[in-house]
Structures are given as structure tokens and as C-alpha cells.
């Protein structure tokens, strides 16, 4: 049954753990997702914004470009420039400047417009300075123009050293009316707005926005463009995201939805930064769950321990009580009220047991006392004494002093039987025993002798009344050999040890066999069953046992040569301290 319950508990714990894990994973996932969305949404927006701006720029280019050709004058100017073989006249320069200015003015974003010819001088107009100058050789876009193939081409950022700083701009080149000599009109756009979009994200430090057209990087927010093509694409990726390895760093790349084959905008985030940013919350959640889990487990274990401790206390106490230590009580302040109730019940049970056992003992003793009292109540002792006194006086008158003495002894013996106290000085008990023996001696007329050997120091202690009488009766009934003349019974008494006194009653009578003695020894320890057994050795043994406790009583041994030795063990107890 227990095994079954244990396995169910184990299974439930397992299931519970699994569910908790599952839920925690879900929670982690959801928190991750929401974090990601929150974090990336800004970037995505920016990507769109960059795209839009770019489209706008592109779109607007033609607005700049076309109207120029619609004006005949402008067209002439352009044609002149592109077709001339020589340097332009100042008037032609002014016209060109005017033209370029006109173009630049149509879009605020335009930083400069340049007319570039591959072979002769190119001119550039800066809108902010309103300056018109020749393009020097180091002009970044010259190379691109040379390689121009399409009508419109977009050139990515170049670093242009404008005096003190590098300026990145986007250039769009449009075709010229007459492409005989090559060249183009290029407008350089301020990427400020693009930059503001790409750098406006506060969350990610490593984010790089890039756009490319036909394989050519046209915008990049980092200082150097990232070469996608040299990157190693990891096989992971979901819609819109890819992981790639560039220069030993892992990046996450997100594409714009509007990407087509030619124009691609994306941003890159260092994977480490991305992970750190997105995983914070889930990890926190995980840690929290783990802590809670551990705490809960601990709490559970601690409670178990507490319970087991308290159970242990109860176990120990029960063991003590079980070992007959009925006075032991559980005095523990339990945390669990149920245990306090159990302890109280146990205490009560022990108390009742103790009480009952004591009561039984007292009852037995009272029984004996009552029996004695009943005996004394059955006849009026004074009547007896007075009658005996009459007999005694008559014996003296008839010159029979011996019989008179015997009658006197008998009266004293009766006085002893019906006496009030059950615990008397050993002196008195021995005197009573002597009287009792004198009656028996008279009966056996010199064929039995009585010897005493009592150490003086034990005379002051007490003993229960009528302790020796059953032993004497027993001797005269079973021990004495009527054929012999030299029967004797000897009563010895001495201190056995610090607490006890031992009496030895020896005789040289008929004696008993070893087996008989063993039987008798065990018989006298059995409880008294019927009236017939009320007197004699069994009664004496029980009385001693009841009064003094376990281990006290009588034991029979075989005599050295003949007869028996009866050992009686009592406690050293004085009459003053034993008040009844």
C-alpha cells in the first residue's frame, strides 16, 4: 500500500514538475517574444522609414532632373557642357551654376549637384555655400560615373572630405542628353535624415542599417559598409531574420519586407547584444521560478523535518513509557497542534495506567488488611483475653505454672495477630515469633531446639507483621522429623547491603528435592487464586512483594546437609518513616 502511494506521489511530483517547467518555458517564451517585439519594433520602423526616405529621394530625383530638360535653355547649357571640348566660358559657367543651383533647390536634401565628365573638368555646386567650383581629382564619385552604365544609377556613401570632416552622402546620377563623351549629372544627397533614423534607436548600440542596390551598398549607418557577401550565413533564420558571421562576430540581420531583387534594406544587430537585450526578462522569470521552486521545496523539506522531529519526540516518549516507565510524560511544545493533542492523549493514557497499577497494588494490600480486620472483627478480642486470663489464673492455683505460661503466650500471640499496625519493629516481630515457637516447642517436648543469630543493628528497623509465622508453620508441618530428638530451626538475620536486610531460616529436617524446591519457588510467585492458598509461603511472598516491591520476597534453597534454607529479603526501613 505504501509503495503504491509512494509511486503515486512520485508520479504527481514528476507531472507537477513537468507542468511547472512547461509553464515557465511558455512564460519565458512569451516574455522573450514580447521583449523582442518591443525592442525590434522600433528598429523595424526605422528600417521602413529609411526605405521610405530612400524611395522618396529616388522618387524625387526625377523631379529634380526632368524639369531641367524641359527648359530649353537649361538643356542647351547642359548640352554645351557635355559636348564641349574646351573649358567653359564664364557665361557658360554661370549658366551651369544656375542650372545646378536650380536643381539643388528643388530638393532641400541635395547637398551638391555635380556635372561630371569623364574627360574634362567637372563642376560641382554646393547648395549650402552656394559655391560653384571645379571638381578635384579626389572627388569620390568620379570613379563611379566613369563606370556608369545605366540611365540612373545610385551610388552609395562615400567619404568626402569637406575641409574638416568626412561627409557621407548618397549620390544619384542621371543620364545626360548626349552620352557621347560620357559623364553624368550627380546629385549628392544629405543622408542626415537617414542617419537620424538609423542612429535614433536608443536601445541597440551595435545596430547597423544598410541598403544596397544591385549589389552596391548605397547607404550604411556604420563608418564602413558591411560586406554582406563575404558574410557566412548560418542556417538558422525565420521570416525576415538571418544569422550571419562577419569578422568573427555573429550578427542578426533583419530584412525589410519591401525588399526586392535590386534594392535591399536591412539592419544588423550584434547577436550578443540582441540576446542580452531580449533575454533579460525571460532569464529573470526563469530565475524567479527557480528560486520560488527551490524555496517551495525547502519549505516542504523543512516542514517535513519539523513534523518528523515532533514525531520523533512522540516516538521516544512512547518507547520510554513502553519500557514500563509509566511516570514519563511528554512535555514538548509542539508546533503542530495535532501532535499536542496526541501527546496529551498519550500522557493521559500513561497517567491512567500508572494510576490503575497503583490502585491494584493498594487494593491488594487493603484486601489483606481488610481480611485481617475482618478476622479481628469476627470476635471480640477482650472477651478472648479475659477468658484466657481466667484459665491462666486457674492453672497457677492448680500448681501448673507451665500451662499458665503457655496460655499467657497464646494471649500475647493473639494480641499480635489482631494488632493495629502492619509494620512493626523487627524486635517485636521476633518476640512474637519466639512466643509462637514456644507453643510448638511445648508440643514437641524437647525434641526441637530454636537458635537465633540476629545482628544487633537490624533490630531497630521494621518488618511487616507475621513475617516469620508462615515459615515456622511450614517447618513444623513439612520440615520437622518427629523421629529425631535433635531437630533444630535457626533464624539468622543480618544486613545484606546498604539497602537490604536478609533473614535465613535454616533447619535440619526432612528437606526437599532440588526439583521440588524449584517448583515451590516458582509456585510462590504465582498469584493467589483461591481461599485455600491464602496462607502459607505464597501469601508471605506476595505480601513481601506487595509491600517492598519487585525482587523482595522469599526463596527456598536446599540445606547444606539436610533440611532447607529459606531466604527472606526485605528493605531497610525504620518504623518512624513508614507511617500508615
Amino acid at each position, binding site marked *: 500500500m505504501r509503495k503504491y502511494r509512494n509511486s503515486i506521489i512520485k508520479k504527481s511530483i514528476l507531472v507537477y514538475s513537468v507542468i511547472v517547467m512547461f509553464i515557465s518555458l511558455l512564460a519565458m517564451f512569451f516574455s522573450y517574444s514580447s521583449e523582442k517585439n518591443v525592442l525590434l519594433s522600433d528598429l523595424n520602423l526605422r528600417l521602413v522609414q529609411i526605405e521610405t526616405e530612400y524611395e522618396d529621394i529616388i522618387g524625387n530625383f526625377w523631379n529634380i532632373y526632368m524639369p531641367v530638360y524641359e527648359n530649353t535653355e537649361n538643356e542647351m547649357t547642359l548640352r554645351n557642357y557635355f559636348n564641349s571640348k574646351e573649358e567653359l566660358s564664364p557665361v557658360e559657367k554661370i549658366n551651369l551654376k544656375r542650372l545646378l543651383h536650380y536643381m539643388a533647390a528643388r530638393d532641400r536634401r541635395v547637398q551638391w549637384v555635380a556635372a561630371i565628365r569623364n574627360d574634362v573638368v567637372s563642376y560641382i555646386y554646393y547648395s549650402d555655400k552656394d559655391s560653384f567650383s571645379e571638381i578635384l581629382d579626389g572627388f569620390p564619385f568620379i570613379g563611379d560615373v566613369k563606370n556608369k552604365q545605366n540611365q540612373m544609377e545610385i551610388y552609395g556613401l562615400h567619404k568626402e572630405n569637406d575641409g574638416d570632416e568626412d561627409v557621407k552622402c548618397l549620390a544619384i546620377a542621371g543620364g545626360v542628353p548626349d552620352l557621347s563623351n560620357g559623364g553624368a549629372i550627380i546629385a549628392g544627397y544629405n543622408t542626415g535624415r537617414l542617419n537620424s533614423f538609423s542612429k535614433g534607436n536608443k536601445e541597440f548600440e551595435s545596430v547597423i542599417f544598410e541598403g544596397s542596390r544591385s549589389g552596391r551598398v548605397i547607404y550604411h549607418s556604420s563608418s564602413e559598409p558591411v560586406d554582406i557577401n563575404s558574410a557566412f550565413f548560418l542556417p538558422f533564420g525565420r521570416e525576415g531574420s538571418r544569422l550571419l558571421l562577419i569578422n568573427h562576430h555573429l550578427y542578426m540581420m533583419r530584412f525589410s519586407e519591401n525588399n526586392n531583387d535590386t534594392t535591399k534594406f536591412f539592419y544588423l544587430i550584434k547577436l550578443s547584444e540582441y540576446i542580452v537585450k531580449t533575454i533579460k526578462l525571460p532569464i529573470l522569470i526563469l530565475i524567479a521560478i527557480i528560486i520560488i521552486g527551490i524555496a517551495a521545496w525547502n519549505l516542504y523539506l523543512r516542514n517535513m523535518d519539523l513534523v518528523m522531529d515532533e514525531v520523533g519526540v512522540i516516538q521516544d516518549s512512547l518507547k520510554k513509557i513502553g519500557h514500563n516507565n509509566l511516570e514519563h510524560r511528554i512535555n514538548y511544545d509542539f508546533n503542530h497542534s495535532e501532535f499536542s493533542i496526541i501527546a496529551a492523549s498519550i500522557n493521559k493514557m500513561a497517567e491512567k495506567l500508572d494510576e490503575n497499577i497503583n490502585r491494584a497494588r493498594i487494593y491488594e494490600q487493603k484486601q489483606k488488611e481488610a481480611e485481617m480486620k475482618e478476622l479481628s472483627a469476627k470476635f471480640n478480642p477482650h472477651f478472648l483475653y479475659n477468658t484466657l486470663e481466667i484459665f*491462666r489464673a486457674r492453672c497457677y492455683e492448680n500448681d501448673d505454672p507451665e500451662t499458665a*505460661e503457655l496460655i*499467657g*503466650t497464646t494471649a*500475647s500471640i493473639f494480641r499480635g495477630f489482631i494488632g493495629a499496625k502492619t509494620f512493626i519493629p523487627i524486635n517485636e516481630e*521476633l*518476640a512474637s515469633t519466639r512466643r509462637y515457637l514456644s507453643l510448638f516447642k511445648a508440643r514437641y517436648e524437647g525434641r526441637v*531446639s530454636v537458635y*537465633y543469630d540476629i545482628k544487633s543493628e537490624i533490630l531497630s528497623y521494621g518488618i511487616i507483621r507475621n513475617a516469620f509465622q508462615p515459615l515456622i508453620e511450614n517447618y513444623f508441618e513439612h520440615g520437622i522429623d518427629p523421629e529425631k530428638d535433635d531437630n533444630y530451626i535457626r533464624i539468622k538475620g543480618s544486613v545484606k547491603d546498604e539497602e537490604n536486610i536478609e533473614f535465613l531460616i535454616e533447619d535440619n529436617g526432612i528437606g526437599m528435592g532440588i526439583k521440588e524446591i524449584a517448583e515451590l519457588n516458582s509456585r510462590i510467585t504465582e498469584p493467589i487464586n483461591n481461599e485455600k492458598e491464602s496462607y502459607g509461603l505464597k501469601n508471605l511472598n506476595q505480601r513481601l512483594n506487595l509491600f517492598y516491591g519487585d525482587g523482595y520476597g522469599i526463596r527456598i534453597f536446599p540445606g547444606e546437609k539436610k533440611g532447607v534454607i529459606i531466604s527472606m529479603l526485605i528493605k531497610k526501613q525504620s518504623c518512624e518513616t513508614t507511617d500508615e
Partner: protein
Amino acid sequence: MYKVMLVDDESAVLDILKNRINWQELGVDSLLYAPDGQTALKKMAEQKIDIVISDIQMPGMNGLDLSGQIKKLYPDTRILLLTAYGEFEYARKAIQLGVENYLLKPVVKEEIEQNIRNTLDNLYRKRLKDPELLKENVLRRWILGTISGEELADRAGVLGINMYMPSYAVLCFSGRNKEIPTGIISEGLKKEFAGDDIFTLWDEKGKYTAIVAGQNIDKEILKDKAEKLIKDNGLENNIIIAIGAVVNDAENIHISYRIASDLIEMNDSCKAGAILTQITVNGDMESELIMEEVRTFFFIGDDEIIKNGIERLAIKFYKNQERGKALYNFMKCCSRVIIQEFEESEKPQVEAYFTEGIPDESISDSMSLENYISKIKEVFDFENSIFKKCFDSLSPIVRLTMQTIHSSVLEGKGISIKEFCSRNGMNPAYLGHIFKKETGYFFNDYLMNSRIRRSVILLRNPSRKIKDIAEQVGFSSTSYFVKCFRAVKGVSPVQYRIDNSENGR
């Protein structure tokens, strides 16, 4: 004469005292009565009361308070207390009041009589009331055998005397000089018998007596310890020690005492420093016969009879082989009779003869019959003179009483103090008193002893019946004779006869 007063609010004890006790024989002429303590004290103010017997539970002043008063006002008066069963604790406190004893009510005649006799004995012998008075009384009665088993068991418990030892023995110490160094002896005993109990007291005849109770006591050990006692304390010139038989029952101590006492008596002439032990189990019947004859001669006073009797004895001795010994023995027997009849104080007189030289045995052996007879006569005359001296120191009435007792015993006639007194016109109480005073014996005790001694002679004849003997010596009943015989000799008459016939003549 002594006066006794009973103080009791009940009459039961008074009845016993009035009707059952022979006061005159004891030398008490009045028995007074008071119903309570106040009246008692009033009466005591009017006349000298020697013994007060008082109940404890009385209206008004109780017996203990009365005892205290008497002790203060009349320190010589002796007190016996009566207590009901269960008031033992009160009575035991009485010991501290210096009473003679306490007795259990209802009073048993024998017990109260024994106690009264003992108290009177104390009075006659002028014994001092020392703090251990009750104990001494008990011990004395114990060795004399005049205390009942009941009383002994109870008093022994109170006095801390262990009555349940394996062995008991009595030692008697007799001084060669006047003073017995009791202090030295007592200390010496305590040392020698360190593991045993020792109780000491003065017996009736002035012998210092010790009761030994212990585990390892036998004749040899006692002898060794007695010798050591004398040696270690330099008592070689002072005392002799007699060792009684060892008995196993406390109630038989009187046997041991009697043996020790007899030993002292019989060996009165031995040197100082001797240890006496019993050689034969029973008395020497031969000597006892001689003693009785001598006693008769002493008291009869008829020279003719004496002469013939002595001659007869001398011839008998002569016929035996050991004449010298017989002479010496004869001398000893005469001395013993004198010692028995008179107090210790006369002893030096007897010794005087021996210092003049004991007759040489060898000479006696070779004497002729005539010489031998005259030698015997010589010895007898010397002893007789001593006897006469002692006897004449008594008052005439006592002398007459003693002689009358002896002749009545010889004739087998009964005699009582009352008869005797009425015949001679005397106050019986006065006679009882003076007799005890001068001889140390109560009249009836002396009479009884004389009868028993006489019966010993009669027992010699195996064909005589005990019954006849009892009658012949004047006992009123055979059982009483047997009881008295046993009290004096320790064995029944029949047993005595058997024992002595075995010893041969």
C-alpha cells in the same frame, strides 16, 4: 518495716495486691492506697513511703508527673509504674525518670510480685539508684531467672539488649581484696569482647557479674579472653573469674549464672588471678551431701550429735584412698556452708585458716585413724567457731527462725511465717523485714532453699519416690517441689538423680 503505696483510680490492681501477695514475708507492714496523685503526695508528707506503685493514666496528675514529684521530694522512694497496653511509649519515657520498672495492665500477679520482690531487694541491700536502675533491675532478674519471657522480651527491646544472639554466657568476678576494680574490668571487657555485647551488674551476693552475648563464644575462647583480661590489666592479685556455661537461648542465662556463681562459691579459697570453669556438667553430689550434714551440725547445736556425726564422717573419709584430699574437701565444704548462709563480708574470716597452712596431704595419708579423726574434728571446730561468730551476730529472733526452719525441714514439717510468728508472739511483717535485712534472704526463699538442699540428700536413695521426697521436705505439692528444684538446681529432680548416679560415688 517498709511501707508500700498503690496509686490508681481503678481497684483491680488493689485487689491483687491486697489478696494475692504475702507482704509480711516480705517485711512490709502496710499497704496504703491513694486514688490520685495529689492524695498520694499528701499521704507521703505524713509518713515515709518506701515503694510507690502508680498507674500512669489518672485524673488530675498523671503517673509520670507524680514520679517526677516524688523524685524531687522523696528521692529514696522507689517507683513502679503501671501502663495499659498501647501506652508503652509513655512507659518507656519512665526509664528516664529513674523508676524501677513499668508493668503492663492488666497486671499479672507473678510479674508484679517479682518486681516488688526485686524492688524490696534493692531497698534491703541499699542499692544506689543509678541512672541505669531499670536496666540493672532487668539484668539482675534476668540472671536470676526471676523475670518472665514476656517482660524480658519487651524490656530488652527498650533497653537495646539483643535477645537473639547465638550464644550467651555469664562471667562472675570475685575480689580477693575488698575492692573490685570495676572500672578497669569493665573497660577491659569492652576491649576483649569488642565484637560482642557486654552487660555488667552487681549480683545479690556482691559479685561483679558480666553477661556476654555474641557470635563466637565457647568455653575455650572465654577462658583465653579472661586470661588476657587479667594479664593486660595487671589484675593477677585482685580477682578471680568464674565462667558459666555457654547457652544458646537468652532465656536460659540463669543456668550460666548459677554455674558461675557456684564456681565462685566452691573455689572460694583459690588464689587470685585464677580462671574457673566448670569441669563436670553437674554438681558434685558428694560434696553437697557433706555440706548438708555440716549445715545440720552447725544449726543443731547439740554437741553429742555433732561429735558422733563428725566421727562417722571421718571414718568414711578414712576408708577412701585420698584422705588428704578428703580433708581438704571437707574444709572447703564447711566454708561453703558458711558462705552460703552469711554475707560476703564474712569471707576474710574463712580465709584466715588457710594462711596458717594447709595440712600436708602426704602427712594426712599416713595418719592413723585416731589422728585423722581428731584432725577432722579440729577442722570442724575451727569452722564451727567461725560459724558461731557469724551466727551470733544475728539478732536472737533471726537465729531462732533459722533454727526452726532447719528443724522443720529435717522433720518434714510444714512451716509458715504466720504460724511461726503467732506461736512466738511476733509481728510477721517485722520478722520478715528483719530476717531479710540480716540474712539477705526472704523468709520463704530461705525456707525453700533449705528444703531443696535437704531433698538432694534424700534423692541419693534411688528407690525413694519424688512425691515422697517432696512431702518429706515439706512441700505442699510435688509439682511445686519440681518447679522449685529446677529453679535452684537447673534440672528436674529426676534428671539430677540420673546425672549423679552416672558420676558414680
